[in-house]
């Protein structure tokens, strides 16, 4: 195992391909501007920034900063990536990569794109002005997306794309001012836990298949809708979330079936707190605290839904969500503003 010093003048793809670099080696990057795309074609290579000014700049013409195709256990740590035409880091058919503490901004595609890959850790990255912050697609499963910040992306903060993208966890991330959704979570048995989602187009969407869990998230200031459950999604669990001051509904189960909505605080939203749509059925709504959602705290248009033991408090006289939320607007929930 070796630590190999790397400068911006070296072709890192060629270096990794050469006999000078072996599995387990660390490439320690000197500070400077790197103008290249790095394809990592060996397993267990660790690419580490020596200081805060290690910058990969695609100058608007290169596609990706790092490509990890069909390899295992690559570490990328502490690097700033900017101005690439596609994604900052593209993982394809990979396993067990560790993408940690990078700053990725101004991509035409995604901050991190994970294609048909599993068991990757994406931790503490700051991503802004990309399409999606982190995208899991084409059968990406069992990935950990933890404590990242995605701001001002043109698509979603964090996304698992379709039904095959299952068993992933989104934990303690922040999604702020993204144009589409804070978290778009298609697939089965995905987890969204303790995320903060502020001023996005929508909050969390769950769709396609069953069993996903949404716990302890804070969702505020969404424009188009807050928490949607689509496509006959079955056996979802939405618990312990704080959903306040969103322009539309708090939780909308369009046609979800056999879900549980429990222990949420849903207040001062500009439409119903919880809306169970006409095709929803067999859902349990219990122990939620609902305050001043307009026009109703709970609207049940479905069949066989069970509403039990919720706190259902209307607005006080002359109180409106708009007025209350204006007072919340100064809270310091801002992310990076690059």
């Amino acid at each position, binding site marked *: 195992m070796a630590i190999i010093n790397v400068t911006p003048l070296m072709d890192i793809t060629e270096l990794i391909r050469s006999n000078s670099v072996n599995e387990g080696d660390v490439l320690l990057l000197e500070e400077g501007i790197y103008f290249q795309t790095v394809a990592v074609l060996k397993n267990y290579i660790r690419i580490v920034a020596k200081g805060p000014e290690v910058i990969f700049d695609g100058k608007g013409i290169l*596609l990706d900063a790092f490509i990890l195709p069909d390899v295992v256990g690559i570490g990328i740590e502490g690097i700033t990536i900017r101005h690439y035409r596609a994604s900052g880091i593209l993982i394809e058919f990979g396993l067990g990569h560790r993408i940690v503490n990078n700053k990725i901004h101004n991509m035409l595609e995604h901050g991190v794109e994970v294609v048909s890959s599993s068991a990757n850790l994406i931790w503490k990255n700051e991503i802004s002005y990309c399409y999606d912050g982190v995208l899991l697609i*084409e059968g990406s499963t069992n990935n950990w997306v933890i404590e990242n910040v995605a701001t001002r992306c043109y698509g979603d903060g964090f996304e698992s794309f379709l039904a095959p993208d299952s068993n992933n966890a989104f934990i303690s991330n922040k999604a702020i001012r993204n144009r589409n959704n804070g978290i778009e979570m298609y697939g089965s048995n995905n987890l969204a836990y303790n995320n903060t989602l502020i001023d996005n187009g929508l909050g969390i969407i769950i769709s396609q298949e069953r069993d996903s869990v949404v716990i302890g998230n804070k969702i505020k200031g969404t424009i188009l809708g807050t928490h949607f459950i689509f496509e006959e999604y079955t056996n979802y669990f939405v618990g312990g979330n704080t959903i306040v001051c969103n322009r539309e509904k708090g939780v909308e189960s369009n046609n979800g079936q056999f879900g549980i909505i429990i222990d949420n605080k849903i207040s001062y939203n500009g439409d119903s707190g919880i809306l169970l749509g006409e095709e929803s059925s067999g859902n349990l709504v219990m122990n939620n605290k609902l305050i001043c959602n307009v026009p109703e705290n709970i609207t049940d248009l479905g069949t066989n839904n069970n509403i039990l033991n919720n706190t259902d408090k209307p607005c006080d006289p002359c109180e409106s969500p708009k007025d209350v939320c204006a007072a919340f607007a100064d809270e310091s929930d801002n992310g990076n503003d690059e």
Partner: protein
Amino acid sequence: MDARMKIEQEIERKRKIIEDCEKIMEQIPAHLRPSQEFALNIYKKEIEALEQELMNLGNENVIKK
């Protein structure tokens, strides 16, 4: 969003990126072109997989009808 629409949008965006990259390949220094071509091939494969997914969705709809 409808799955079909999601896939179509993803394909459309990726196609545009590929087209633009192919157009500007001449501007890219010669020693960096192999890595761009390598990346392009990955995106082309990704589009093929998404197109396959679209076809499967079409077949599912036919079966449902």
